[in-house]
């Protein structure tokens, strides 16, 4: 009883308060609508409500104050996701990765790219996004006086030879530890080569003078692609985007403060993205739930926020001889392609996210 009366008093109190308020508020002007817009509910279990929640989330991310805040909101919700490894032994991994990342594969180098010396010693894959400014020899011959200084290929060759000789021959080293062949010779050789070449070519490419070289950096990216139905668990039956995460550790990375110009315009049609009807777990790809990271190698405050080149070392497990012995010669190419697609997609997409 006491409760009822208390509640009625409260209700009357509220009534009284609302009457006073309506007396105070002036009548709305005729241009404004009288009622708030009629939209779908926010918390109902319906597709319209789901759409509205998605819109609200997107608005929150766009309205966030800084890029770190946006990235934090973007990767806040943790759910099981597929971990994509760039260096993988899975068969035909490059077609799968192309379908995940919406990439079209074009064999050969991009047009107007530099005739870069094809140095691929051992098991190294230089993934090139080389600046067109290093189209050195052609520019030097075409331009008249006041041209860029002559690109001394002899000097470059001797630098490369010196680095190779030092690491493999002249320096007294112990034998490599078990399964650590890559750290013993090719790794230091690559570091030496890149640093000496970058220093030497600073005069031709002013971007290199302002660049930043990372040793063993980390590159992470998290994205959604496609949809699937949740199979089991308390969220069974709901439609969810398929989540992927790439965690990559290239051997070396060069970052520059200016964006490299694009090779091919945005709308050009170079081919089709392969479509694969199976689930990603057939690749094989496994799901794990952990932190959703987006990272290019340094934080957003770094002025060198655009990428130039990444260098990867293919591990011994994926070397040519093993594939040849197992009668899988065509998969050798697949390994390199998949590595390039996955690593560079993660890097470029993370750089794009860093821009806002």
């Amino acid at each position: 009883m006491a409760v009822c009366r208390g509640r009625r008093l409260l209700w009357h109190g509220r009534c009284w308060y609302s009457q006073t308020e309506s007396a105070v508020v002036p009548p709305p002007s005729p241009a404004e609508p009288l009622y708030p817009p009629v939209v779908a509910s926010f918390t109902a279990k319906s597709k319209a409500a789901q759409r509205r929640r998605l819109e609200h989330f997107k608005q929150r991310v766009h309205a966030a104050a800084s890029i770190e805040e946006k990235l934090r909101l973007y990767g806040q919700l943790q759910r099981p996701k597929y971990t994509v490894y760039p260096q993988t032994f899975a068969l035909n991994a490059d077609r799968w990765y192309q379908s995940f990342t919406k990439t079209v594969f074009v064999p050969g180098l991009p047009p107007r790219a530099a005739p870069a010396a094809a140095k691929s010693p051992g098991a190294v894959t230089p993934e090139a996004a080389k600046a067109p400014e290093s189209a050195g020899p052609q520019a030097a011959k075409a331009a008249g006086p006041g041209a860029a200084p002559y690109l001394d290929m002899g000097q470059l060759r001797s630098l490369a030879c010196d680095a190779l000789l030092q690491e493999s021959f002249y320096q007294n080293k112990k034998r490599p530890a078990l399964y650590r062949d890559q750290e013993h010779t090719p790794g230091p050789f690559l570091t030496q080569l890149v640093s000496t070449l970058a220093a030497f070519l600073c005069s031709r490419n002013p971007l290199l003078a302002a660049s930043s070289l990372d040793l063993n950096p980390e590159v992470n990216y998290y994205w959604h692609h496609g949809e699937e139905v949740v199979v089991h668990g308390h969220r069974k039956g709901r439609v969810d985007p398929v989540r992927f995460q790439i965690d990559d550790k290239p051997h070396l990375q060069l970052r520059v403060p200016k964006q490299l110009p694009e090779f091919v315009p945005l709308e050009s049609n170079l081919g089709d993205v392969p479509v694969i009807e199976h689930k990603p777990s057939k690749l094989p790809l496994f799901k794990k739930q952990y932190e959703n990271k987006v990272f290019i190698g340094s934080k957003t405050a770094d002025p060198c926020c655009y990428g130039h080149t990444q260098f990867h070392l293919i591990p011994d497990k994926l070397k040519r001889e093993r594939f040849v012995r197992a009668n899988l010669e065509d998969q050798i190419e697949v390994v390199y392609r998949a590595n390039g697609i996955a690593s560079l997609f993660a890097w470029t997409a993370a750089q794009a996210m860093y821009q806002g």
Partner: protein
Amino acid sequence: FQGVRQAQWLTKTKLVEGLPPSVLGIVNDPAHQLECYEEGAKRAVSHARFWDTTEVAPRREHYCPVLFEDLIHLCRSMAVKYPALTKRMLARNYKIAATWERESTLLQVRGLNGILMNSMAPIPPVASKEEILATEEHVLETFYPISPTIDLQEVNVYRELNNTGFRDGYPYSHPHTLFFLESDNIRTNRFRPEQLRAKMLMFAFGNALAKAKVLYGDDPKVLEQPIVVQSIGTDGQLFQFMVFQLNTTDLVSSDGIKNLVWIDSDQNLYEKAQCVPEIKKRVVVKPAGIYGFQPDTFKKFLALYLHGTV
């Protein structure tokens, strides 16, 4: 024991405070325009201390090598102005071995030390002939009654080895600068500045001696062309600069011409690097950033790098 003083006795060296005049000349020379690299040096420090990791603040064993790499990258990009700088090569994880006798005790320096930078051309001698002859009168400091070999590890040596770490015919045969990075997370595992200076002196001496034995043979004698080796040691914030000149390999007796070393110690590159802003009672007291950046330290670093080619 007493750090640099003990190392001086062991290597028969005379100490001179401050950097030698040739290096100071490079620092103060306005023609080199070392000022425009201040911005790059600040960026290198911020990159190493703040931006390089997904965690909030990187550990010392992460940021110390990153800072070193960035500074070297900056120095190397100066090859635009001085083409002779391309004749340099870094060597990591190399081993040095040098043996010498010092008043009836056999001493040796061996093993992995730091990162060495080699160059094709040797550094010209820093001290003049008069200064070298003047060291004859200098008396080495002894620590009577403490034996000078206190705190040294006693080891049975079966081969008296003298090895620069590289084979014959190596094009970059002259050791130029040694870099020491004290990058352990735990403070007790790191060397204190005094001990770091002693370590730098011993290894620079070892390198110079090995090179001298390769060039001039094993007989102890006074060198007409003294060998100069530089050395820089850091723990990510504090820098120690050192220039060592080997004048003689006659180390058995305690008199005669001595070797020379110039040490510039405890140069701070920056006072404090605040990763997260310090907040007291909901008010930001110290915003994040670098405090007390001193461009002079980087200028000295660069000058030591350029020394020998300029």
